[in-house]
Each structure stands twice: as C-alpha cells, then as structure tokens.
C-alpha cells in the first residue's frame, strides 16, 4: 500500500522551473531512494513534500490524504519527519535538548521513553547528552539529526544526503542504521548523491535529472543498469 504518492509535481524558484512533473510513490515498509547529480532537484522534491516549499501544481498524498498546502510544522503530527540536508541540528543546544526538540509535537510524558530508545540506537549520543551539539563530530551530528527525526516516531522518514561529508567508515555505519530503521518498521525516503550506497540498501529507486525522473525500478536492477552505472556509479 502506498504511504506517499506524488504525482505531476511542479516546483518553481521564482521563474526557475526546478521540478518538472515528478511522480513517484513510496510503499509502506520500503526504502525508496531518489538519486541524481547535484542540482537535479532531489532536495527540492523532499523539501516540497515536507511542506517547506510550495508546489506550483501537482498532488502529494500521504495516507491517501492530500498534504499540499499543509505547513511544514503540521507535518510531524501527520507522521512525517525530514532529516534535512546539512543535518541542521541546533548547534547551540545540548544533545538532549536537540532530541527534546525532535519530540516537540508529542506529549511531554512520552518523550523520556523515546529519548531512551534513541540512546539505545545511538549509544554515542547517550555518552554526550550534556554536550553542546556544535562540539560533536560530523558523524555524531548526523546521528543526532537522525535521532532527532526519530523522536517524532515518524511513519515516513525522509533523509536528505545523510552521508554528506562523512568518512567512508561512518557512511557505512549510517547506512547500517538506515537498514535497521527499516527493519524496525519505518518507511524511508532517501535522497543521496552516493548512488552506490543508496542503491545497495534501497528496495526501489528513481533517477532524477534536471527536474525529471529519467529512470526508475528496483534498486538491484538500477545498480546493474548500464546508463545508471555510467552516469552515477563511475563505471
């Protein structure tokens, strides 16, 4: 059953036509990835789904209900969380305060328990819970960003470039965690430039090029598709 269904999405930045009729869907329990080069429109698509940008036209359905025009701050309570590009954690707050912000839309008495869950998944965050987030390393900041997004107990978790700027060993760690999240029942929409990694953990994938979807299919198919290999996997 499709959890998120996007049809004929058009997004403009002023007069620039950034997204030109993108359609895709994410089924419950899947990891779906949008891959593509810099400037292809991946982040724009995610930000529009999250309500940070307004589409010119097209439909976005979450649980068969339209969410076009719903402001970003109402999305969390509808079961959607975005872990944004560049992490954007609150650098001047402590690790724990960041997590508490992640649970902002939920009743206070449930938050402590969720924080414990996040600590179990990311023991590193527990060790540093009192530390100011700006002093964490890049990998720890990414874990905090993911932990913060998990605090809202999302049905659909969207992640924008979680591997950005991380050392290869950390990238693997982050992708392992994404797989674990899937196994725990979270549906994931993943945007990545690291196509190799993204395709290796995803169920299905869409290839985005200058605002169009140019290819789609199961991740394993695309991983072996010649044009995808040539364009995004470097061989």
């Amino acid at each position, binding site marked *: 059953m499709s959890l998120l269904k996007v049809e004929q999405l058009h997004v403009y930045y002023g007069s620039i036509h950034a997204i030109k009729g993108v359609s895709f869907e994410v089924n419950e329990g899947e990891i779906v990835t949008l891959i593509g080069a810099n400037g292809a429109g991946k982040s724009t698509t995610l930000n529009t789904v999250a309500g940070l940008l307004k589409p010119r036209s097209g439909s976005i359905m979450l649980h068969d209900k339209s969410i076009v025009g719903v402001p970003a701050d109402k999305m*969390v309570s509808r079961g959607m969380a975005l872990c*944004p590009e560049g992490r*954007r954690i*609150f*650098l001047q707050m402590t690790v724990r305060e960041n997590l508490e912000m992640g649970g*902002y839309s939920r009743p206070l008495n449930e938050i402590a328990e969720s924080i414990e869950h996040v600590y179990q998944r990311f023991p590193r965050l527990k060790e540093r819970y009192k530390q100011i987030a700006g002093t964490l390393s890049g990998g720890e*900041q990414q874990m905090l960003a993911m932990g913060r997004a998990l605090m809202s107990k999302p049905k659909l978790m969207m992640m924008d470039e979680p591997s950005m700027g991380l050392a290869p060993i950390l990238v693997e760690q982050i992708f392992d965690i994404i797989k674990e999240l899937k196994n725990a029942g979270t549906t994931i929409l993943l945007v990545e430039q690291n196509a190799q990694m993204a395709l290796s953990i995803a169920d299905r994938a869409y290839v985005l090029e200058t605002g169009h979807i140019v290819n789609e299919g199961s991740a394993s198919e695309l991983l072996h598709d010649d044009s995808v290999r040539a364009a995004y996997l470097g061989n």
Partner: protein
Amino acid sequence: MSFLSNLINGISLGSVYAIIALGYTMVYGIAKMLNFAHGDVIMIGAYISFCVTQYMGLPAWVSVLAAMLVCTLLGITIESLAYKPLRNAPSLAVLITAIGMSYFLQNVALLIWGSNPKSFTSVIDADPIRLFDGQLIISDVALVTVAACILIMIGLTWFTGKTKMGRAMRAVSEDKGAAQLMGVNVNLTISVTFAIGSALAAIAGVLLCSAYPTLMPTTGSMPGIKAFTAAVFGGIGSIPGALLGGILLGIIEIFGKTYISTELGDAIVFAILILLLLVKPTGLLGKKVREKV
C-alpha cells in the same frame, strides 16, 4: 561617596537599558529584524501608566499591569500588521517599516496626549535608603529598578531554558526551517517574542519615567536607541549580553556625564560602542558558531 552614588545611578539607569535591550535582542534573535519601534512602545507604556493613575485614580501597581497589557497587545498587533507580511522581504524593507512604525507611534501619541510634557509621578513610593550617616542615598526607584532587572533576567533564563515555548524560541533563533520541521509554529513563536519584549518595554517605560519624570511623545526614542546600542554592545541575540551591555552603558553614561562632560555624555557612549565594534564586531558576549561539515 559620590563615586559610589554615581555607580549606583549608573547601574540603575543601566538596568532600564538592559530591560529595553532584552526586547531588541530577543526580537533580533528570533525574527532577525531590528524593531526600531521598540523605544516608542516604552513611551506608550509610560503614557498608559500615567493615564491610569492620573485620570482614573487607580493605584500604581494597577497602572503597571495595564501598561504591560496594552503594550503586549500593541507589540503583537505591530508584528502581525507591519512585520509579518514582510517575513520574506529583504531586510531593508523591514528596517524601513520599523522606522516608519516608530514615527507612527510617536505621532499617535502626539495626537492623543499633545506635545506638552507630562510630569510623571513615580510609581514607587518608598523612603530612600540612607547609608554612612546619610552620605550615600540610594533612591527607592533605583532599588526597585535593579531588583526588577534581576528578576526579569532570572525569569527569562528560566523561560528560555526550561519551558517548551522557550525552547521553541531558541530553536527558531538558530534555524527557522529546522524548527518548523520539529513542529514549531514559527509565526506563533515570533508573536510570543514580541509580546514578551513589549511587556518588558512597558515595565522599562514606567521605571524610566519614575526616575526621569518628563513624559512626552519622544521620550522613548533616545533610551530606545541607547538600549539598542547596549544590545549590540553585549552581542545582539544574547540575553546575558543585553544585561551586561545595558549595565555597562548606564555606568559609562553616568560617569561620562559626571566626570567628563554633561553635554558629551551621549557622544562618549556611542564613541565607546564604535571602538568596541572595531575590536570585537560580535559585541562582548556575541559569538560566531562555526559549523562542522
């Protein structure tokens, strides 16, 4: 003894600046705009208090509450009518709107209360404290002003650190978009910030006019500008910075006026601001956060 008494006057004046500066600094931190009409909200607050005591004959504490209430509503109204439509406009447009709002408020006051100065009666009616056989006199207003400033600082520190709304305010001041993704209603948060800043402005107005009792439509503009200076001095966006900047500015002003020149008092204040900004552009407690990639 005169040194001590000047110091106390300076701290007392500085406390008023600090209370006003908090409004500037919070609004700047959260809405990233300079609300130049803030000084005039102080003046409106003082007029409301004046009217409630003089024309309605109600006790002073009622007048303070009334001033806070009116200013809170005024602050929310100003924000939603004048600034909210410009949320995505260039900052210059917002700045000019704020200056326009400042003149608007002054002229409204001119229409309602006229240009003749009113003589404000202090809302505090207690005996001054005499120390060292009456050589050092601390006025009741000075005491209450400093106490109010301390209480407000403690209250705000608690509010921003411990309450949900306070957290949301800190989140919005760091990253509006990310705060929204957490479910924070940014517009509501900005309204609350204006409400708090304006309520504090009302308190500052009443305290200011209790110490310097001449009340006219331009009463708020100079203290407003000085409090803005104080906020920049301490590091705009920082709450402890507003306190530190305000107190230092008050002391410098009083000392400059007493020991150097009465006429040059304000010039000295602003000269020191320029010097400080040359050396430390972020202000005393302002900090640049480096982002890790």
